[in-house]
């Protein structure tokens, strides 16, 4: 895997966009999912995930091939998501919630199109609730929780992505878990 990626990176460094497309294909779902769970909005997630890949392409010359590529792209996407969260004004949150009913979240988009059995509707509603609770977490807890439990990365990898000591990552995960425990215990 690393060997394949390094080969592609060498080609991208020469400006080969076909090689770049292969790398995008490989990571697009993981990166989009990260952005979507961090931001809670399909359009914003798409926007930020695209931006992350464009930054990879534009900065490929500064990438150290002795390091893990996935760590680098996760770092870019996480930082861009956090920047976006911080730039959101409080009133934007209100807008987003109102707009959510018009199909801005992934599940209402799906559910508006097709008539679904009761059970599936319930499952989708549960997922929307969980997403909403994740979005209530402050960004420093939200990022570690998403990286750990949605992207399923190890504590060590998360520490490298966020450029933090493993101990700090653990503390943040503990606090994030405690917050989610209180928010989700009645479900």
């Amino acid at each position, binding site marked *: 895997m690393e060997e394949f990626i390094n080969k592609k990176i060498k080609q991208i460094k020469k*400006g080969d966009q076909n090689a770049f497309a292969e790398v995008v294909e490989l990571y697009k779902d993981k*990166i989009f*999912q990260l952005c979507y769970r961090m931001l809670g909005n399909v359009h914003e997630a798409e926007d930020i995930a695209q931006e992350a890949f*464009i930054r990879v392409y534009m900065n490929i010359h500064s990438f150290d091939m002795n390091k893990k590529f996935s760590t680098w792209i996760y770092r870019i996407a996480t930082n861009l998501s956090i920047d976006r969260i911080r730039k959101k004004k409080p009133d934007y949150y209100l807008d987003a919630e109102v707009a959510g009913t018009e199909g801005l979240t992934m599940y209402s988009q799906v559910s508006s199109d097709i008539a679904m059995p009761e059970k599936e509707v319930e499952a989708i509603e549960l997922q929307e609730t969980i997403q909403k609770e994740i979005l209530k977490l402050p960004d420093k807890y939200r990022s570690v929780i998403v990286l750990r439990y949605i992207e399923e990365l190890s504590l060590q990898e998360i520490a490298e992505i966020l450029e933090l000591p493993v101990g700090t990552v653990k503390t943040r995960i503990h606090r994030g*878990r405690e917050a*989610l425990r209180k928010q989700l*215990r009645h479900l």
Partner: protein
Amino acid sequence: MIGVSKMKCPKHVVEMIHKYLDGDLHEDEGRELKKHLQSCEDCKAHYQELEKAVAFVKSISHVEAPADFTQKVLEKLPKEKRTVSTRRWFRNHPFFSAAALFVILMTGSLFASYEESQFSVTKYDNLVVDNRTVIVPEGETVKGDITVKNGDIKIEGKVEGNVTVINGDQYLASAGQVTGEVEEINELFEWLWYEVKSTLSEVFKQ
């Protein structure tokens, strides 16, 4: 009641639960935790709520990017350097490449020219040359193409044209700007394609 039972719980039980969830718990701590959870409803509930929260979060993974994601990213990139698509074309048409190479080798000029390691650069009045490094100074604009052979180029100002570096490196400062294409030709292999291209374009010109 809850208040009373909380009093008797060692403070570090919750800490141990988190360590357990992170796979960091030592064997003896594990035994201690298990024993406590069997006898304490509050801590057991705390543990189960944490497990439930984690399971809920995990259950919402498996989101996929929109179908046209890659296409949209590619559309936003700057136009691909023509030289790369040329190189890719040659790579995908090995027979033609071999034939072209043969023609070039027959001309006999190739290796002679490759071995020349004389430093040279396209002449412009505002270029600074410092021991095989060509500098486009900050605030200066070079109007035209620059080719550097067997040396490096540092671009701090602006180049209105293409930059080609043969057997050297190019450094683009953050304030530097090149309106055309930047190409580095370092290895013998790339040098071959460079020769192929220039020979071919000469052939087609005639």
